[in-house]
């Protein structure tokens, strides 16, 4: 079942197309990594898909009413804003708002806190946590929304290796449970290992879409990312190790 379907999405900034005619679908059971160099249009594409940015083309999410969309998709923006020193439990409970009541005692809130290992922080002021802990609290907030689809913009930035691997495992677990995740990822090693599918953007255009081993070809890594990398498969799965810059 397709949870996200984009047809010919174009986002213009002045005369420049920051997203240029992108079509894609994300179905239940998929963990899709959105990759591409800085400025490739990953954030703009996600914001347009959610109806947060004026765009041309069709997005099934952008066409929904605000209330319906909030039950269809959870969004984790890149800017990690926590404006007030609310408790972590209250912060995570905001994810329940589309379902009626942002109650910190909601079982979905408890589940999300447990998944991100935040139970010990529940009553602490969210703004008093470290940057990485705040990022985990915000991920828990998005999980508490318990929507079929999660769209996350660089959710792993600033997390330590353990938290990054945990996060990717959680997202892969959501996909296995029949939900779907679309996340922009800069760490191609994590993307190669955990995502079921990768979508590669370059200068606003979709240039590759498929299983990680196909998308991360030597030619594309050189042409799009200007890097050389070692890519091989062992019993742990696909292993990606960047080696150097090509210029």
């Amino acid at each position, binding site marked *: 079942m397709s949870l996200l379907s984009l047809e010919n999405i174009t986002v213009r900034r002045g005369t420049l197309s920051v997203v240029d005619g992108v079509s894609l679908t994300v179905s239940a059971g998929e963990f899709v990594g959105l990759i591409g160099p800085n400025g490739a249009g990953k954030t703009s594409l996600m*914001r347009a898909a*959610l109806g*947060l940015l004026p765009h041309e083309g069709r997005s099934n999410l952008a066409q929904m009413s*605000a*209330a319906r*969309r*909030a*039950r269809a*998709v*959870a*969004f*984790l*923006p890149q*800017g990690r*804003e*926590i*404006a*007030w*020193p*609310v*408790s972590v439990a*209250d*912060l995570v409970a*905001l*994810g329940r*708002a*589309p379902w009626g009541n*942002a109650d910190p005692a909601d079982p979905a809130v408890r589940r999300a806190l447990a998944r991100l290992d935040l139970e010990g922080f529940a009553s602490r*002021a969210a703004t008093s946590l470290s940057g990485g802990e705040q990022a985990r609290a*915000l991920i828990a*907030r998005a999980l508490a*929304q318990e929507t079929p689809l999660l769209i996350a913009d660089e959710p792993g930035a600033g997390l330590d290796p353990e938290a990054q691997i945990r996060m990717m495992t959680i997202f892969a677990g959501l996909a296995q449970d029949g939900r779907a995740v679309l996340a922009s990822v800069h760490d191609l090693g994590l993307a190669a290992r955990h995502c079921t599918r990768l979508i590669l953007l370059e200068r606003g255009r979709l240039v590759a879409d498929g299983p990680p081993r196909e998308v991360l070809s030597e030619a594309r890594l050189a042409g799009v990312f200007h890097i050389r990398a070692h890519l091989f498969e062992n019993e742990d799965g696909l292993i990606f190790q960047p080696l150097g810059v090509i210029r």
Partner: protein
Amino acid sequence: MKYLLPLLAVLVALLFCASLLIGPAAMGLGESLRALFTGEGGPVVLVMQEIRLPRALLGLLVGAALGLSGAAMQGYLRNPLAEPGLIGVSASAALGAVLTLQTGLAAAFSLALPLAALAGAGLASLLILALAGPRGGALALILAGIAISALAGAATSLVLNLSPNPFAAAEIVYWMMGSLADRSFTHVWLAAPFILAGMAALMTLGRGLDAMTLGEDAAESLGIRPARLRFVLICGTAAAVGASVAVAGAIGFVGLVVPHVLRPLVGARPSRLLPASALGGAAVLLAADIATRLIAPDRDLKLGVLTALVGAPFFLHLIWKMRRVEA
């Protein structure tokens, strides 16, 4: 704090009664209450029903309007330094009022001043909606508010500058200091509908303001429509604060300090801060108005002067404390 709202409500009720019982006319407690409720007791009835009751009611309404709109404005802008006057409504209402004082309209027709102030607030809110309406974000709202405040402030200075005689200028300056003295029930009937409607609109914003804690994009993905939120915020604030300035003049610091003080007591959640700030604002204004009568009974100490004199050092103290915590 679990019992914060009931505690604040009791405090407001006590201060409201104190406001009814304290004044230059020395009257016994029983005598005052009997006059208020039964209408028996000659001149005491007049003092209670025509002077003290409207004054206390206005203190309650204006304080609640300032506290609530301050909390809503800080919640929307995600900034503890925001205050209701930020969107230019107070300055524009003051300009409307000052114009009637300058032209003599206020002397000729007693309701001219509050009506002109309301018109000023209405005009300012239309202007700010046009400038920072459906498309503009928080920054557009702040900048448009600063521009409108500056323009209205400059126009008020011009009126003062060109005032025909020193008495007119003095009258304008005194009015701008803010006061609840010598207000009648006409003022209550005029301001109450706007203040209550504005407050009712602002009280609906709790859920949206909570979501705004995560920023505008995340709030929108939680089903909040920021353009609608901004519209209700501007209209609610304009009605509540515009009407407050119309009957009481410019009273600063209540809308800034009250939400700031109460925020830690409600777990910083904007939705819980709204009712607490409304009650807190009412308590502070009633207390300040009583203080003006006690400190200098025969000098007509202005309410706005007192709130700023007490509010500003208190705010400095809070900043000092915050600095130590963050250091």
